[in-house]
């Protein structure tokens, strides 16, 4: 039996889940209201437990490369809540300053690289960060990143996993198999029993987990992160869940099989986590209700703040893609 998680971990993870959900709900409302959010809106709904469990299991000096449905993991890892609202509204004070938006944000110098859209391409970047730490004699770090089951079909994903295995990097790759990549069911995406079966082909350890359960996710990630930190090489963790939203908020997800929705996979991981916390005596009803209220209030507050902040101004924008100013061309293009 693995050691029971210390009491504060599931509690903190759950609070991150609640806040992520509240942020999602809020941004979805703004999106539906129209005119307040430009571009797409991508929710984490259904993935909060899996995501938060990884984020909370990492240590502050670790590296965490989140993807599109990792708001809970970001918060659990310690990324400021305001980054979320500021990026969605394009605040000039946000980490992306309106240059990039929605879920594309990060703080590379604080161990959180900012994903680009091309699926799979983040994994090797996290490898490089880990490589650099080891190269400079910094030990004891783990790097983690997340991807959907659809993203595992990319060449970039394969190259990075293989490289991590060859370099024996302390990498944890979390695959959130939420059954669909946009509208495409996993049966059109891969043909193996479980994506964790890929681990052996890289010479890494594979873990399968019921990602609807926070407790199971916490336990599995603890094992994976510990193994990576102990020098056992990269770890592949595959979680089973269901996306409880459209691909983006423009999508009604009518293609999702009702049988899946009605199955245990379709249960809301927030409901499950609440039950788990209660059952384990880790929190009481009223405390949990208080957290939920606090999360909603915080979500509202960070959007209010971000919306009041100055939008980016094209006239003060540098329009320079590189830092070496003397080599910039097209000053007035």
């Amino acid at each position, binding site marked *: 039996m693995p050691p029971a998680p210390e009491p504060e971990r599931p509690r903190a993870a759950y609070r991150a889940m609640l806040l992520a959900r509240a942020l999602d709900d809020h941004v979805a409302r703004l999106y539906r209201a129209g005119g307040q959010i430009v*571009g797409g809106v991508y929710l984490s709904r259904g993935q909060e437990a899996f995501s938060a469990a990884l984020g909370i299991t990492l240590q502050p000096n670790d590296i965490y490369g989140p993807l599109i449905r990792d708001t809970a993991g970001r918060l659990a890892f310690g990324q400021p809540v305001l980054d979320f609202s500021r990026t969605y509204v394009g605040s000039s004070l946000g980490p*992306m300053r309106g*240059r990039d938006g929605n879920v594309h944000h990060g703080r590379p110098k604080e161990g959180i690289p900012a994903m680009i859209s091309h699926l799979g391409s983040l994994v090797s970047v996290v490898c490089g960060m880990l490589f650099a730490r080891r190269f400079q004699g910094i030990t004891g770090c783990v790097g983690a990143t997340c991807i959907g089951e659809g993203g595992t079909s990319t060449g970039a994903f394969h190259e990075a996993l293989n490289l991590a295995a060859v370099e024996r990097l302390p990498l944890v790759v979390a695959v959130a198999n939420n059954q669909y990549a946009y509208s495409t069911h996993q049966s059109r995406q891969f043909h193996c029993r479980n994506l964790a079966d890929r681990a052996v082909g890289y010479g890494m350890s594979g873990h399968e987990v019921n990602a609807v359960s926070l407790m199971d996710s916490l336990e599995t990630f603890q094992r994976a992160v510990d193994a990576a930190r102990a020098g056992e090489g990269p770890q592949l963790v595959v979680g089973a869940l269901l996306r409880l939203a459209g691909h983006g908020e423009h999508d009604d997800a009518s293609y999702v099989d009702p049988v899946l929705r009605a199955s245990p996979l379709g249960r809301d991981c927030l409901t499950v986590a609440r039950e788990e916390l209660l059952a384990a005596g880790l929190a009481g009803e009223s405390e949990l209700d208080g957290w939920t209220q606090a999360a909603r209030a915080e979500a509202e507050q960070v959007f209010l703040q971000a919306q009041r902040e100055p939008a980016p101004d094209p006239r003060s924008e540098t329009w320079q893609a590189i830092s070496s100013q003397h080599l910039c061309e*097209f000053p007035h293009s």
Partner: protein
Amino acid sequence: MSIPYIAAIRAAQERLLRENPKVFVYGQDVGSFGGAFKATKGLAELFPGRVLDAPISEDAMVGLAIGAAIEGLRPIVEMQFADFSSVGLNQILNQAATLYWRTGVSCPITVRLPSGGTEGSGPFHSQSMEALYSHYPGLVVVAPATVEDAYSLLLESVALDDPVIFYEHKFLYYHLKTDALPESNLPLGKARITRSGLHATVVAYSAMVHEALSAADTLHDEGYEIEVVDLRSVKPIDTDTILASVARTGRLLCVGEAFPWGGVTAEVVSRVAGEGLNLLDCPPLRLNAKDTPIPFHPNLWRTHRPTAESISHRLRELLSL
């Protein structure tokens, strides 16, 4: 005005699937979902087994299309966004585009690239990649600016024995509409004089044609008649039509939505300078997007890409030279 640009692309694909049993469509979510932009809506049901969801594997998607083309099929590959073709680019440039020259076996694949900027789409869902694909030998690169051209150029592209990059503009998908799809049209390879004028020529393609037309309206109110040339294909470029226009107007502005280094505008201007220098009454100008990634925030985005306003501005500069 009931048929939008995206519907023309869907209609062309429906017709191709109906008329040619060798045509199939392959791309992420193009099956029963009908594609991220609904360009294949209903087609999977109409043509079972011929409109197929692909895994997120752009390299293999293009590779599969090339293999199928070798065996005589006519694949249409839909990239979900043009931007993601960067990871299928090697198969396009080095496999598809070299096949005919190396082996004598032609490679009739059409790769549809939902391209160009729209508000809030940011650096990775807004790109215009025609410069990359046109630079390498072996491809035809088409860029329809009108609903009619989207329809007829897609029909022609798939009929062509060579690999075609089909640059379709997301901004035009729903904005642009027409009454009826054309029975015949200018052939692929010919540019169109969309608006005739006297004082200057604007050469543009895709969404920028409409920005140029609107700039021409503005300049008309200021007393200038601007000729607008719609390239329709950027490889080949119909140099003759451009030169003939510049011969009439003596002034050239070339407008593109892509990044400013190289690309269509550089190719057009350098051809005109090389073959029609004596036609020019003043220096030829260019207007492109800025040399940064495409910004997410609308404030920045509207300044990043050329607009009717910035084209008007540049035209006034041109006319004052």
